[in-house]
């Protein structure tokens, strides 16, 4: 039948948002159209089931309990949006400025720290491989070959490292922001 009711109208019927004249037309049509009457019956069942499912009673005294619970609480000051990001940026700028100003003193310290770190990692690497029964020399030779070709790949490595570090920083900041927002605003 050309005047048959479309599914969107039935859906709106389910939420009681049909205009009175549309509702009258729907009901009148369903009296003469078996197919639409069947559709309407199906939508009515769904409407009833959804209504039943949503029939949740708020427990008595919830409001009073909430009010007594917050009686001793204080409203915390508002958190500043993007505080973590600004803090991190400020820390990076501060560290860079500090290094630039005191680089004659800081550079040897930094280099010795890096050197000590690398020595420690090398020792750890060597001992670990020895402990699991592998010859560290094989891997060292392999590493040497990789390092020999490293010169030509340096820009690629640098770009990849830069992207990875940037991505990591962005993820950390976004994670922190999302976490703090989720805690505050849900």
């Amino acid at each position: 039948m050309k005047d048959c009711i479309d599914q969107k109208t039935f859906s709106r019927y389910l939420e009681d948002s049909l205009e009175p004249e549309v509702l009258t037309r729907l009901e009148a049509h369903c009296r003469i159209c078996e197919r639409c009457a069947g559709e309407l019956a199906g939508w009515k069942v769904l409407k009833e089931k959804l209504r039943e499912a949503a029939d949740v009673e708020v427990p008595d005294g919830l409001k009073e309990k909430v009010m007594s619970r917050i009686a001793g609480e204080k409203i915390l000051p508002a958190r500043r949006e993007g505080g973590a990001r600004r803090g991190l940026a400020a820390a990076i700028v501060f560290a860079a400025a500090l290094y630039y100003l005191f680089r004659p003193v800081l550079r040897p310290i930094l280099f010795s720290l890096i050197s000590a770190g690398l020595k420690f990692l090398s020792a750890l690497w060597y001992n670990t491989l020895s402990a699991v029964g592998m010859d560290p020399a094989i891997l060292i030779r392999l590493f040497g070959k990789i390092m020999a070709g490293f010169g030509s790949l340096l820009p690629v490595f640098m770009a990849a490292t830069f992207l990875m570090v940037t991505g990591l920083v962005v993820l950390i900041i976004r994670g922190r922001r999302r976490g703090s927002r989720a805690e505050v605003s849900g």
Partner: protein
Amino acid sequence: MARQTVLYTVMEKEMQDYEVVRLCLEGRTEHFETLVDRYQKLVYSLAWSYLKDAQLAEDAAQEAFAKAYKHLASYNPAFRFSTWIARITANTCTDFLRKRKEFCPIEDAFEVTDPEGTPEQHVIGRETKDRLEGLINRLDPKYRQPLMLYHLAGMKYEEIAEYLKVPMSIVKNRIFRARKMLRQAMED
């Protein structure tokens, strides 16, 4: 005096949420009761839909309101209070579930307790509800979530759109499609 009280109550009823929040922030914290009154149904229904346990849902609802109160200064009036409190409730429920170390999906709320009628009707009703629950469980989350928020938590289209951060037309369309899928599945 009585007239003043009536006037005051009427004014309070007509106050926008952000105005109530402002009063609370100015130290008139008793007005928070208005917000609890307005959103207790939403908060409790949502908590119940997550936790499927009356006592836990009540605890979660209290916790959510307490959190909202503490962080009231962080509320952004550019958004609806309902979506803000709904998010806090959802997060609180997730914390509760994490603590309980078991996840009970939002759809499990489609289990209605204390049905009336004869034992036969009870069984038939239970089967229909189980079936509905199963059908909803099978929906894609992108359809299931707005359907639940609309029919269970009683949120409006605009609120769901703000909550899900998608345009209202998408919310309407997804709810329509979810209903259509449910309707068809119920017929099969």
